[in-house]
């Protein structure tokens, strides 16, 4: 019978911590870069220019309709034939492009959900398009954007586990390695799931606090 033995976690704790740090690093970089791409994408999608709108549409549809794993493998092994991309660079690029597409949609939906009357009233008192966006639309839109945005960030932390297939030494890669050495699949995977839970839930709590503070202005 399989005897549970959690002591292997103790033995490999330094390696697990290194993996955790790598996952956090990749997640933070991808969240930041993804948000930048998301804002750019959203502005493209609501822009008056046909070219910009098309670029935004193609970007979103292409990313949303292909699996993340395929995107990671394509960037590292596919584009890797032509460019010299390190696994770290490929992971962050893939995760940023991926989350950027979803963030684009979240921001766009948030902006477009603000009543037209707001924009019309602002324009009628003489504000420029840019002032309208900056002073009226965006502050209100942010409150609507924050919950789904947080959800996307949490998804990103979990999706980052896929970069283990291109030998990035993140939490999942370290776990796979430990399992192949110790054969303790149950204990190791349970512990790793707990670590991802702590990361994601921690982020979720932080965002909830932020939402409460923003809601004070309501």
């Amino acid at each position, binding site marked *: 019978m*399989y005897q549970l033995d959690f002591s292997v976690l103790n033995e490999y704790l330094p390696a697990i911590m290194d993996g955790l740090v790598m996952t956090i690093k990749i997640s933070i970089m991808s969240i930041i870069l993804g948000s930048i791409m998301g804002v750019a994408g959203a502005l493209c999608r609501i822009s008056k220019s046909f070219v910009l709108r098309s670029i935004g549409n193609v970007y979103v549809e292409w990313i949303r309709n292909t699996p993340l794993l395929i995107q990671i493998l394509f960037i590292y092994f596919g584009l890797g034939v032509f460019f010299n991309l390190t696994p770290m660079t490929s992971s962050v690029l893939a995760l940023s492009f991926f989350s950027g597409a979803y963030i684009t949609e979240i921001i766009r939906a948030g902006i477009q959900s603000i009543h037209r009357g707001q924009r019309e009233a602002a324009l009628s008192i003489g504000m420029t398009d840019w002032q309208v966006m900056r002073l009226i639309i965006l502050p209100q839109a942010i409150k609507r954007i924050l919950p789904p945005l947080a959800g996307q960030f949490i998804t990103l932390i979990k999706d980052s586990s896929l970069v283990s*297939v291109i*030998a990035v030494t993140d939490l999942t890669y370290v776990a796979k390695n430990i399992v*192949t*050495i110790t*054969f303790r699949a149950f204990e190791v995977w349970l512990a790793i799931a707990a670590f991802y839970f702590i990361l994601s839930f921690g982020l979720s709590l932080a965002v909830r606090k932020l939402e409460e503070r923003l809601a004070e202005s309501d």
Partner: protein
Amino acid sequence: MMVLKLWNNYAGNILLHLKTLGGLLMKNWVKKVAGVMALCIFATAMAGCAGTKKETAVDALKKKGKIVVGTATGYYPFEMADKNGKLVGYDIDVAKALGKELGVEVEFQNYAFSGLIPALQAKKVDVVIAGMTITDKRKEVVDFSDSYFTSGQAMLVNKNYPNVKKWEDLDKPGNVIAVSMGTTADQTATKMFKNAEVKKFEGSALAGLELLNGNAVAVIHEVPWVAIYNKMHDDKTYAVLEPFTTEELGIAVPKGNPELVAEINKFVKKYKASEDYKKTHDYWFVDMKWWDMVPAKK
């Protein structure tokens, strides 16, 4: 009458408790999480209890009528996918001969190599035939048959890194050695290389791809794989085929099935002395008549 009254009483009580429990579960998500975790632990305990068998593994197989063989494609020429996606290879032929000997059908299940032993432990497969080396570490968790093939580790080197004669030549800082995660190549490389970086991939195919893209200086794997991969890509690679380890390949079986191991050992002894063995061995390793069946990686 009395029974009915008692029943109504109890049923009503139970329903009330269930409703309250349901209400609590709806409201308090902490209880939901605890419930799911309790379920997981319960299921694991149950799975553990299912280990007590009255019949032997061999009888169970014969009753089932089939043996589920776990393998990991990508290890040339032991297990590969041909142009139609069908599994072919030396191990495949060995498995089919084993099935014939036991009088059962053979069903193959493909896993990543590092997932094979967990699959065996979780009883998802009956045996593992995947060019797997017999090691003491693995013997702690699974049982092996007698050796059915002898092999050794060799090196596949990037042509941009010439004049490698022994593995020490590769062990320089900044060099990346690619291996398939969980294999003895992985364990050997991790132990041996002190200066070079060892990168582990799911499957030798990705490790080879890393080499072809110029991101790794060498792949460590067993002689047959190195020889064939080199032939497939001799524009970018060269091989150092003199093995620097010796590996005995065995068929892996879940622990606690000595009769199954004995049965398989009988088969291995018989097979190695048979005509079939020589024919199969020459087909996969010497003449390599299967070359055009398998898609070339160019």
